[in-house]
C-alpha cells in the first residue's frame, strides 16, 4: 500500500514564522548601480562631460540600465522565494504589505514637497510675474480638453483594476486577465496623451516658475505612472503564468495600491495645477 505521507511541512525545520533571507548579491549590486546613476546624473546636470566625449548622458543611461537590471534580478528572487519556495508565510505577507504601504507614504511626502513648491510660487505671485497666476504671457492648457480625458482614463483604470482584483479573489481567471489588461490599456493611453500634451504645450520647463512647477509636478507624476504601469504589467504576466492564488497575490495587491496612489496624485494635480492654476 503506497500511503506514506511524504509532505514536508515548514514547521518541521523552521521554528519561527519569519523569512530569514539567504545571502544575495542583489542589494550590493543595486547600491553600486544607484551610485553610478546618481553621480552620473549630478555630473550631467552640472555640465561635466564624459572624458571620452559626449554630454555625460551616456553614463546616466548606463546607471539607469544597471539599476533597473539589479532591481529586476532582486524582485525575480523575491517572486521565486514567495511563489515557489513558500517562504512568504502569513506574517511575512503582513510585513511585506506594511513595507509597501510605508514606501508609498514616503512617496506621498515627496509629492507633498512638489506641491509645496507649486503653491509657494503660485499663491503669492511675484511682481516679476505681473503679480498674477498664471503669469503674464503664459498660454495655459485648457484643463477640460486632454487633462479631463486623462482624469477619466485614470479613474476608469482604478475601476478596472478593482474588478480584476475581485476576480482574482473569486477565482475568475478570465475576469482577472481582462480587468488587468484594460487597466494597462488605460494606463498606456494616459501616458500617450500626456506625451501629446507635452509636445504641443505652449510653454517649456524653462518658461519661468510656471514652466518649472508645471513640468516638475506633471513630469514626476508621469514617471510614477510609467513605474506603476510596469508594476501592474509584471503582475499581469505572473497572473498569466498561474503564480497568483485567490488568497495570496501580494505583488498584484502592491501594484494596485501603487496605482491608486498614482491616481490620487493625478486628481490633486488636475484640480490644483491644471484647473486652479490656469
Amino acid at each position, binding site marked *: 500500500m503506497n500511503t506514506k505521507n511524504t509532505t514536508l511541512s515548514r514547521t518541521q525545520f523552521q521554528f519561527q514564522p519569519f523569512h530569514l533571507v539567504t545571502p544575495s548579491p542583489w542589494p550590493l549590486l543595486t547600491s553600486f548601480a544607484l551610485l553610478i546613476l546618481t553621480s552620473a546624473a549630478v555630473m550631467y546636470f552640472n555640465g561635466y562631460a564624459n572624458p571620452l566625449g559626449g554630454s555625460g548622458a551616456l553614463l546616466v543611461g548606463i546607471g539607469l540600465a544597471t539599476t533597473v537590471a539589479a532591481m529586476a534580478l532582486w524582485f525575480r528572487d523575491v517572486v521565486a522565494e514567495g511563489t515557489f519556495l513558500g517562504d512568504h508565510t502569513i506574517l511575512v505577507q503582513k510585513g511585506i504589505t506594511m513595507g509597501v504601504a510605508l514606501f508609498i507614504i514616503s512617496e506621498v511626502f515627496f509629492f507633498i514637497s512638489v506641491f509645496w513648491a507649486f503653491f509657494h510660487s503660485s499663491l503669492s505671485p*511675484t*511682481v*516679476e*510675474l*505681473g*503679480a*498674477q497666476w498664471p*503669469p*503674464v*504671457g503664459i498660454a495655459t492648457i485648457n484643463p477640460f480638453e486632454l487633462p479631463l480625458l486623462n482624469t477619466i482614463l485614470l479613474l476608469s483604470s482604478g475601476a478596472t483594476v478593482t474588478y480584476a482584483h475581485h476576480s482574482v479573489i473569486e477565482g475568475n481567471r478570465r475576469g482577472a486577465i481582462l480587468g488587468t489588461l484594460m487597466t494597462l490599456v488605460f494606463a498606456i493611453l494616459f501616458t500617450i496623451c500626456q506625451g501629446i500634451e507635452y509636445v504641443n504645450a505652449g510653454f517649456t520647463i524653462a518658461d519661468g516658475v510656471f514652466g518649472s512647477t508645471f513640468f516638475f509636478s506633471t513630469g514626476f507624476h508621469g514617471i510614477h505612472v510609467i513605474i506603476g504601469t510596469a508594476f501592474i504589467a509584471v503582475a499581469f504576466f505572473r497572473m498569466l503564468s498561474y503564480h497568483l492564488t485567490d488568497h495570496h497575490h501580494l505583488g498584484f495587491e502592491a501594484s494596485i495600491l501603487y496605482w491608486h496612489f498614482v491616481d490620487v496624485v493625478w486628481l490633486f494635480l488636475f484640480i490644483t495645477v491644471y484647473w486652479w492654476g490656469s
Partner: protein
Amino acid sequence: MAEETVEIKTAPADFRFPSQNQTKHCFTRYFEYHKCLKAKGEISNECEKYAKYYRSLCPLEWIQKWNEQRDQGIFAGPL
C-alpha cells in the same frame, strides 16, 4: 511773515497689503496708475493720485526699470 505749512505725507496704508513687505503695494500702485492712464487718457488728472502713491512707495530703480520695460513692451503687468 508768511508761514508756509509744508505738507508731508506718503501713500496711505492699504488693507490689501498689511505686511511689512510693501513690494506688491508699490507694484500695484504703479500698475493702477498706468491702467488708469490707458483707460482715461494721458491728460486727465484723476490718475495723479496713483502717481503720487507709487512715487512715494517705489524705489527709483524699479520705476526706471519698469518704465524701460513698458517702452520695450515687455512689462510684466497685464496692461
